[in-house]
Every structure is written in structure tokens, then in C-alpha cells.
């Protein structure tokens, strides 16, 4: 019987043949925590009473969620992380480096065929570069930090095939929002999702990361793609680790196979307060917005900033809209400066904040007031996500967010046809 990508990668790391449904102890190639989860990682690690971490080269802590710190409580957590890093001689990306899910692949810490655990739910992002990566809690992470291993339930797999040339103004974000709408917030719980099809193949690696990033929004454990030449080149330019690309067997067993044709897809928007509550942008043109946000591990990469800058160039943001931009990493920030995007943003009236999560999780950098409406490129729009349970969050692509910021209401980016 053939195997899925998940079955193969986990088998390689367990040293025995595994199939979906089995529980196994696997070696973990890399693990990390961020500033919302590291405090408990440290507490749990301390409870284990160990003198050193399993392998200091396989662990990082990233300060990205509330960076720089907005209050004393967070500052204390950051200090605790820095102290732990010194005591145990482990590595950190401190404030200003960027979002964990951008840094970890960008800095070459992971490669095709790896098993990666992160104490953050969007760790599934690197599935796009053929990494079995998934989010866990802090204590789980501490166990891996101590032992280099963890237990895994080998997931069943849903195969998703996406075909068709994307129309102008429609991006990978729109594709994944549409898939989440179809599969539902709970439709892939405990499962691996494998993405295939000519739409995916035609995408840049950055665009593919957006898709895998949101696999968890349908409950999935991982959102895996095969490593084609684009991926191998991307990884090769960043990582000195030897890639071990893994393909599914032609006779692999899937829990379900779903096919989508996206050649006529419209830009998609997730409405409050659920990620699977998705409509065509055209149905929402009467929704006024107070805030716009481009950034996050979903859409804070260079091509995302470029799409937004192209739409904004030379035009002022609507006077009723605060437009916040957070590049996903320092390197992306610098490139955006070089390419003139930052100048475009500032001239249009945007606020470009430091590399990191920005206002995504509502701890700083743009908390909404009661009744306010935001349109954001993030991956979650749960009630209270941006810090206020009485506000409303819509999710869309960078182009849709930028177009909406200009008009002061949710706007189809195809209205700016020449700028797409």
C-alpha cells in the first residue's frame, strides 16, 4: 500500500513503517517558541529539572507577537526569555527580527523532509516547502527541547487539487479562503492536507506559504506540498541543510480527494467572526472600514507588500482609515525600503511598524475601538482577535486590503485593473 507525504516523513523519523492512525515517537529536526508561548515552555522545561537542552542548534525563541513590548507584563516575559537564552546558551530572534514563521524558513533552519514543531498554531506554514511542521503547546515543546523527540499520531490525509489560471486581482489568499469555505473550519481536523494542481505549481514559494499557513484554519495538522524545482531552489538559497524531498506514492490512501477550478474565482473575504464565513468581495461593497492591515505570517512577505504598494502608489488612504503595515521580517523590510514600497506607503498615509506580528493578535500596534471594522491580511478573525471583542475583522488579500483602504469600504481590487 502506498504512502502519503505525512506517512513517509513520519516513518523516516520514527525509524519504522507507519500508516495513518498509528501513534509513534519521532525525532524532531527543529523546534521553537514565540513570546506568547515561551514563558510556559521555560516553566515546563524547568520542571523537568534538566541541566541542558537536547541540541541547542535545533531550537530558537522568537519575540514577535508583542514586539517591542507594550506593557510591564510582556516586558517581564521577554526578559525571562532572554535570561533563559543566556543560561542555556540557546538562540533567539529578539524584537525587530520578524515573525517566527517567516524567519524559520527564511533563515534556513528547516528543509524539505524535516519534522518541525513550533509552539504556535501556524507552524503548518512550512508545509509549502515540504516540511512536516505543526503547532503544539508549550509543554509539548519543552518535552522536545529536552529530548529531541515527541509523540505523533500519524494523520489521515485529504488531497486537495487546485487547477486553473488565477484571474488578475486574485491571489493565493483568495484560493485558500475559498478552500476553507468549502471544507469548513472543522473539515480537516487532525488531518494532513496535501495540495496539488497547476494553480499551485504556477505560484511563487511565497504565495504557497500563504496557503499552507492557513491549513490550520480548517483544523489541519499540516498543509503539505511537494518540493518542485522552485522549492528546491528557494530552500537551497537559504539553508545549508541537505533537503530530503518527499513525494506521495501514486497509490497512497486518502481520506478524501477534493478538486477545485479557480479560473473564475473572485477575490474572497472572510467575514466576522469565523474564517470559513467567506464571501465574494463583490457582496460586501457596502461595508465601511476603520482600519486596514497588511502583514503577518500569512501575507507580510515582499510580494504582498508589492501588491499593496502598486495599488496605493500616489494615492491617499481614505481619511477615515488607519492603514498599518508590518513587514514579516527585517530582510523584507529592507527590501521594501530599497524597492520604494515603504516610501509609497508613508506618502499614502500608512503607518509602517516594525517587523513582527503587528496588530494581528491584539496586544499592541493598533487595537480596535468598540464597533470598529478592520480589513486585514491575517489568518484569523475571531471575536476579540485584534484586542476588542466588540470589533469586526474581515480577512482578505493584500490587494483587496489596499483597495479597501483607498475607498474606505470593502473594495474589489479589480476596480484598480491597471495596478494589478
Amino acid at each position: 500500500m502506498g504512502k502519503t507525504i505525512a506517512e513517509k516523513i513520519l516513518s523516516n523519523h520514527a525509524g519504522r513503517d507507519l500508516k495513518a492512525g498509528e501513534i509513534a515517537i519521532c525525532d524532531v529536526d527543529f523546534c521553537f517558541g514565540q513570546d506568547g508561548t515561551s514563558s510556559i515552555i521555560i516553566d515546563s522545561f524547568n520542571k523537568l529539572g534538566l541541566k541542558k537542552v537536547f541540541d541547542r542548534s535545533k531550537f530558537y525563541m522568537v519575540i514577535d507577537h508583542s514586539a517591542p513590548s507594550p506593557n510591564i507584563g510582556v516586558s517581564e516575559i521577554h526578559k525571562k526569555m532572554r535570561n533563559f537564552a543566556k543560561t542555556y546558551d540557546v538562540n533567539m530572534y529578539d524584537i525587530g527580527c520578524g515573525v517566527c514563521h517567516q524567519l524559520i524558513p527564511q533563515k534556513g533552519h528547516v528543509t524539505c523532509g524535516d519534522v518541525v514543531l513550533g509552539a504556535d498554531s501556524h507552524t503548518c506554514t512550512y508545509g509549502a516547502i515540504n516540511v512536516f511542521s505543526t503547532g503544539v503547546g508549550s509543554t509539548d515543546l519543552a518535552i522536545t527541547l529536552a529530548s529531541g523527540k515527541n509523540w505523533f499520531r500519524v494523520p489521515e490525509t485529504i488531497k486537495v487539487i487546485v487547477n486553473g489560471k488565477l484571474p488578475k486581482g486574485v491571489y493565493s489568499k483568495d484560493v485558500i479562503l475559498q478552500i476553507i469555505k468549502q471544507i469548513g473550519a472543522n473539515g480537516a481536523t487532525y488531518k494532513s492536507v496535501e495540495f496539488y494542481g497547476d494553480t499551485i505549481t504556477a505560484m511563487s514559494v511565497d504565495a504557497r506559504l500563504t496557503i499552507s499557513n492557513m491549513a490550520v484554519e480548517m483544523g489541519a495538522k499540516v498543509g503539505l506540498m511537494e518540493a518542485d524545482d522552485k522549492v528546491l531552489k528557494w530552500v537551497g538559497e537559504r539553508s545549508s541543510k541537505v533537503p530530503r524531498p518527499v513525494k506521495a506514492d501514486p497509490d497512497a490512501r486518502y481520506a478524501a480527494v477534493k478538486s477545485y477550478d479557480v479560473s473564475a474565482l473572485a477575490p474572497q473575504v472572510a467575514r466576522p467572526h469565523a474564517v470559513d464565513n467567506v464571501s465574494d468581495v463583490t457582496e460586501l461593497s457596502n461595508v465601511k472600514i476603520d482600519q486596514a492591515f497588511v502583514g503577518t505570517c500569512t501575507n507580510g512577505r515582499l510580494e504582498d507588500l508589492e501588491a499593496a504598494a502598486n495599488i496605493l502608489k500616489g494615492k491617499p488612504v481614505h481619511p477615515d482609515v488607519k492603514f498599518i503595515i508590518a513587514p514579516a521580517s527585517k530582510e523584507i523590510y529592507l527590501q521594501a525600503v530599497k524597492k520604494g514600497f515603504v516610501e509609497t506607503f508613508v506618502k499614502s498615509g500608512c503607518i509602517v511598524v516594525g517587523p513582527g506580528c503587528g496588530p494581528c493578535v491584539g496586544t499592541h500596534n493598533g487595537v480596535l475601538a468598540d464597533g470598529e471594522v478592520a480589513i486585514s491580511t491575517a489568518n484569523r478573525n475571531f471575536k476579540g482577535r485584534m484586542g476588542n471583542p466588540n470589533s469586526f475583522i474581515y480577512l482578505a488579500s493584500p490587494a483587496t486590503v489596499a483597495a479597501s483602504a483607498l475607498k474606505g469600504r470593502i473594495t474589489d481590487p479589480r476596480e484598480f485593473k491597471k495596478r494589478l
Partner: protein
Amino acid sequence: MRPHKKHYARRLKVADNINTDYVISGRYKFKIQDPKELAKHIFEDIDPDFAARVRDGDVLVAGENFGCGSSREQAPQALKTAGFYAIAAKSFARIFYRNAFNIGLMLVECDTDFIDDGDELELDIEKGKIRDTGKGLVFDVKPIPPTMKKLLDDGGVVEHFKKYGGFKFEQV
């Protein structure tokens, strides 16, 4: 484990897709580290009076996909600290599932439509049954995998690790 003790059901107004942001808002997880303090704020954004109604030994009852969203372990930790003996739901999100057993909080998967807030419940994990004593209804509980039971018996994964110096599961 105390299989036959009586518990009272606590139900939220929302049944399905209760995410970890609802369990404990992100604005607290970054500020407050003490689980006892966090426990006072559970479900604040969707049911502000809920935390005050919880009694020691209660069973939290929910629908599908409980605990979806962020990986924050503060969510199960706050629920355990609030006094919940177990959570009964139709299904759980996977990170929450791992986190709960890792900290020694029991999750049971079963049909929960028949349970109302305040119902008296009996949980028998060995036999795989949940009984609503007031209504006289009994439903099957999906068997808890032996690995998870072992973690619960050992008091969570940290204690398990300390006891055996690593993972010790049968047939793994």
C-alpha cells in the same frame, strides 16, 4: 482517577468551534501569567458571567471542534485551574487535545446535544460511558487512546517524563 464521582455540566451559549481566543483572550495571555488569575477570565468575550458559575469538579460541555485556534496552553491550563474535571465535546481541535492531556486535563468525545447546563453527570472512562442522571440517559464515549490514559494517570507529560526519563508507552 475517580470514575464514578458526580459532576455538574457547564454549558456555554455557543456550542461549536469555541476557539482558544474565547477560552482566554489573547490580551490576557500576554499580560497575566498566573493560571489562577487567568481562570477568572475564561470565556469572558462570549459569556461574561461564565467564570463565576464554575464549581470545582464541573464538566465543561461543548459541541464540535472545541479549542480550535491558537496553540496557547494557557487555554487548557486556565480551564483546569478553574476547576473543571473534564471537558466533554463532540470533537476537539488537535493542538488543544494534545495540550490538555499533556497537562493532565481529561477530554471526552461523545454526543453532547442531550446535556443541558446544570445537568448531573457521571463519567465512567473504563466502560466508556457518560450518564445524565437527571434525564436517565447514557451515551458512549469514544475510547481514550492508551497513550493518553497513561499521560493522565501519570499526571501529565512532564510528570511522565520525570518518572521514566523519557516517553514510555506500550507498543510505540
